[in-house]
């Protein structure tokens, strides 16, 4: 068996449908008849195993309440019509449905009428200066590791490498020149630990928005730029604290 139930956007949509179908006067809705039909609709929804949204149930309760109030009403002339609020909600809802139809009947951009596609906002040069993400830095690190000189014999020594020191170094070197390449920065380092410390330092400075890291083109030179100069002292203080925190954590 196949039953076609019309789909309603919500309880108001269903009520308007029932009013129209029965040719009721919206200003004088026979409340017990409409309540009955409304509940019948919910029952058929249930039979079809359709989930009934809470707002439909809330409306059913409201209809029953209005029905009771209508019955209890003693003097029709003096008292406020219990249906009044529902009627004004229905009328405004119907109006908005018509507004929706009105809007849909307009000449809609990209449905009925079209524009010349927008001009490119960025110039070509700006487009290749893409800002780098931390993962790009990691790729570059891999590359540098490959190029690092491999010593013929090895002596194992415990080396103390400090990220704070590297941060200070980067701040120092970029404040002289405003900009330098990543290769320049890590030139001549002796071990992987130093490289890791440099990368951690760069990430920390990026986070603090003290430097900006840009790359002209894929696999191109990575440039480090200084963004904030005036807050140097404040930043250094912050970095010291960052260093202390790290030592505490490792202890």
């Amino acid at each position, binding site marked *: 068996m196949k039953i076609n139930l019309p789909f309603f956007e919500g309880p108001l949509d269903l009520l308007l449908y029932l009013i129209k179908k029965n040719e009721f006067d919206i200003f004088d809705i026979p409340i017990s008849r409409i309540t009955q039909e409304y509940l019948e609709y919910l029952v058929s929804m249930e039979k079809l195993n359709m989930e009934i949204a809470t707002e439909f149930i809330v409306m059913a309760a409201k209809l029953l309440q209005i029905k009771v109030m209508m019955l209890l009403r003693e003097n029709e002339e003096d008292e406020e019509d219990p249906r009044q609020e529902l009627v004004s909600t229905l009328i405004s809802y119907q109006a908005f449905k018509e*507004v*929706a139809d009105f809007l849909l009947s307009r000449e809609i951009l990209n449905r009925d009428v079209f*524009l010349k*596609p927008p*001009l490119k906002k960025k110039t070509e040069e700006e487009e290749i200066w893409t800002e780098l993400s931390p993962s790009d830095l990691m790729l570059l690190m891999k590359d540098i590791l490959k190029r690092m000189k491999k010593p013929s014999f090895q002596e194992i020594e415990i080396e103390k490498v400090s990220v704070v020191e590297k941060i200070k170094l980067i701040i120092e070197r970029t404040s002289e020149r405003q900009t330098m390449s990543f290769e320049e920065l890590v030139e001549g380092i002796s071990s992987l630990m130093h490289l890791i410390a440099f990368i951690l330092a760069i990430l920390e400075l990026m986070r603090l928005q003290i430097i900006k890291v840009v790359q002209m083109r894929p696999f191109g030179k990575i440039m480090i730029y200084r963004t904030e100069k005036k807050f140097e002292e404040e930043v250094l203080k912050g970095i010291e604290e960052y260093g202390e925190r790290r030592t505490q954590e490792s202890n």
Partner: protein
Amino acid sequence: MEREELRKVIEGIIFVSDEPVDEKTIQKVLGDSIDLSTIKGILQELQLEYSSPLHGFELVEVAGGYQFRTKKELGAWIRKLEKFQPQRFSRSAMEVLSIIAYKQPVTRAEIEAMRGGIDSSGVLKTLLMKKLIKTSGRKRDAPGRPFTYSTTKKFLEVFGLKDLSDLPPIEEFMKREEETEI
């Protein structure tokens, strides 16, 4: 500058602009010696010219400015180009958008009450993503100071409206059925 030359320049300015161009922007380019009424007059001339059936696009006054748009009868062909993502709206999106257009600034709770208690958060998110609405502040006297929503300039552009007053008064949609049928 001769009026004919002015016309060409104005036509060119509108042609290269991504957004609707208003008279003041045109005046900024042309200089203060050209008054707004001259510009307005030329814009009307251009509108008339492009409204001719000889042209595939027309000059439309929309979202506070002027913009070249293809004519509606070309839609079927242009949609074949496939480079335009067709604009689609669900019924619930249109209901919410209609309420915001007339009741702005309006909170989510107010919108939901007007729709008979339907949860509208998903629709609001979609409309925000499409940039047809924006949050426009908070309602201070309501509990929790909820956000209020308003329509955007893009809303005017998409529905081809000059400004919000271009929307018919809500009373026009509220007439009793008997009256509208007459």
